[in-house]
């Protein structure tokens, strides 16, 4: 029996989750929400996290009905994410690990999403679309590593949608003023175009890897229209779509705990010296975690999925 506690605070969500051998025992979370029209800034976000992390931790232990002594490993988000919030949470993880005398594990945030997605949905070897406020990537497991087959270089889809909403009135005032269209029309068009792009790139990755499963993770993955479009594409190819709900699509502590659980069982730990955090991904090919039941890979076939840019011109 292995129990892992996970701390996640790389963006505006602060979550602490506890996982025991594939069962989520608790997963409380708080979200830092700024007034409408404003994005969230690192220092303010870190302040928010510092203020409530200990309450969330207590809640996690209480809901799971376990004591610190029962825990086998303390996992935390090493990166990527925003600097100040990452540090704020890492400090707590390091402190409790030392207090409780438990090993530490720095986890990659993206892998956290993927591992939780796989656990909750039971997907065996999916092509993963990871799309959120800060990330837009198509990932597949290949030759013992999770590999990024395509990614947005300039801005993530979630961030794009948020910013568009903030600037729409200024940028499109002529069109709106002339009554050519409504703000709703513009938002609808943007969403349809972006989501078509995501589905297309995912399909190309599936064709390239010979995959019959799709897993959507990340906050934007909660969107029902995106799930609907992906489902249509999957049906046409005879593939299966796996999606989670907002408990696990959105950043949470249990996903870090779950990825930590996989790593811990493979013998990984993170020493205190190596427990620094990083804003950017450490390596484009994400560090290998040996997931359970990872069966033999499907052979590659054309066409490629690399053309993430210029999809809709």
């Amino acid at each position, binding site marked *: 029996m292995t129990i892992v506690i996970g701390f996640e605070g*790389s*963006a505006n969500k602060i979550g602490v989750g506890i996982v025991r051998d594939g069962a989520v025992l608790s997963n409380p979370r708080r979200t830092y929400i700024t007034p409408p029209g404003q994005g969230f800034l690192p220092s303010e976000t870190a302040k928010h996290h510092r203020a409530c992390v200990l309450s969330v931790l207590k809640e996690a232990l209480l809901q799971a009905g376990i004591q610190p002594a029962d825990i086998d490993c303390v996992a935390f988000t090493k990166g990527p*994410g925003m600097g100040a919030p990452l540090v704020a949470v890492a400090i707590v993880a390091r402190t409790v690990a030392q207090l409780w005398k438990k090993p530490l594990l720095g986890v990659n945030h*993206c892998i956290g999403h993927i591992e939780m997605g796989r656990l909750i949905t039971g997907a065996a070897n999916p092509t993963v679309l990871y799309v959120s406020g*800060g990330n837009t990537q198509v990932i597949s497991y290949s030759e013992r590593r999770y590999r990024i087959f395509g990614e947005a270089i300039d801005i993530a889809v979630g961030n794009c949608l948020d910013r568009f909403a903030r600037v729409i009135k200024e940028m499109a005032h002529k069109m709106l003023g002339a009554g050519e269209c409504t703000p709703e029309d513009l938002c609808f068009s943007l969403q349809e175009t972006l989501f*078509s792009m995501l589905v297309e790139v995912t*399909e190309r990755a599936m064709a390239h890897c010979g995959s019959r499963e799709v897993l959507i993770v990340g906050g934007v993955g909660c969107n029902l229209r995106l799930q609907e479009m992906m489902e249509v594409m999957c049906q046409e190819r005879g593939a299966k779509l796996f999606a989670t709900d907002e408990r696990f699509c959105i950043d949470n502590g249990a996903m870090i705990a779950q990825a930590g659980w996989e790593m811990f069982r493979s013998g990984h730990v993170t020493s205190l010296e190596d427990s620094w955090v990083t804003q*950017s991904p450490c390596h484009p090919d994400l560090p290998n975690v040996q997931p359970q039941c990872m069966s033999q890979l499907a052979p590659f076939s054309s*066409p490629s999925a*690399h053309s993430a840019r210029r999809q809709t011109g």
Partner: protein
Amino acid sequence: MDIKKENSSTRQFLSGMELLKQGAEARVYRGQFLGKAAVMKERFPRRYRHPTLDEKLTHRRTAQEVRSILRCRKAGIAAPVVYFVDYTTHCIFLEEIAGSVTVRDYIHSTSKTDTEKLHSLAERMGQILAKMHEEDVIHGDLTTSNMLLRTAMEGGSLDLVLIDFGLSYISALPEDKGVDLYVLEKAFLSTHPNTESVFETLLKSYTVSSKKSAPVIKKLDEVRLRGRKRSMVG
């Protein structure tokens, strides 16, 4: 689906053809067109997309593909001959490159120790891509599956043919050419592990084959860094 399209002569024509494969974007058939061995590429409607968006994208991709192929051919770059285009069904009828193998399969079947073979292939690839970029054609989907090798004559140079111009467009910007090469690099290295030196040969050959290459390579270096450094949140 539009009744007119369903009963169109193209659809009837295609139903007599051999379906080669169904990719993410199109169905590819094989058969005869006016007595010539031909390949038919049909961009079928994607139901997950809004119909207006679908029509716009499909039409644009079909037109771009044909335009880019013709532009390449005019400049002496090997690409299939375009026999016919049907814009109602978004179907392109192309020359079948007989007796060919994809560069991907060629590399897979070449022993890792046969470095000379791989490097002369890379040299040829660099040359042909440099020529294409000199014409300001951005392929948009450069992979080793989108390049064919016509089985070479004795002692002849490697006969490379570029295909699949569906994501192509015209641009003079070094940035766009740099990204084009970046896409190939990612595709190349992930499909053919441990071939960094082969790809380096490709880039070197590209650099010497074109006067406009220096800013492109510079942009490629910039683009390589870009994907990694950005901070990811959420």
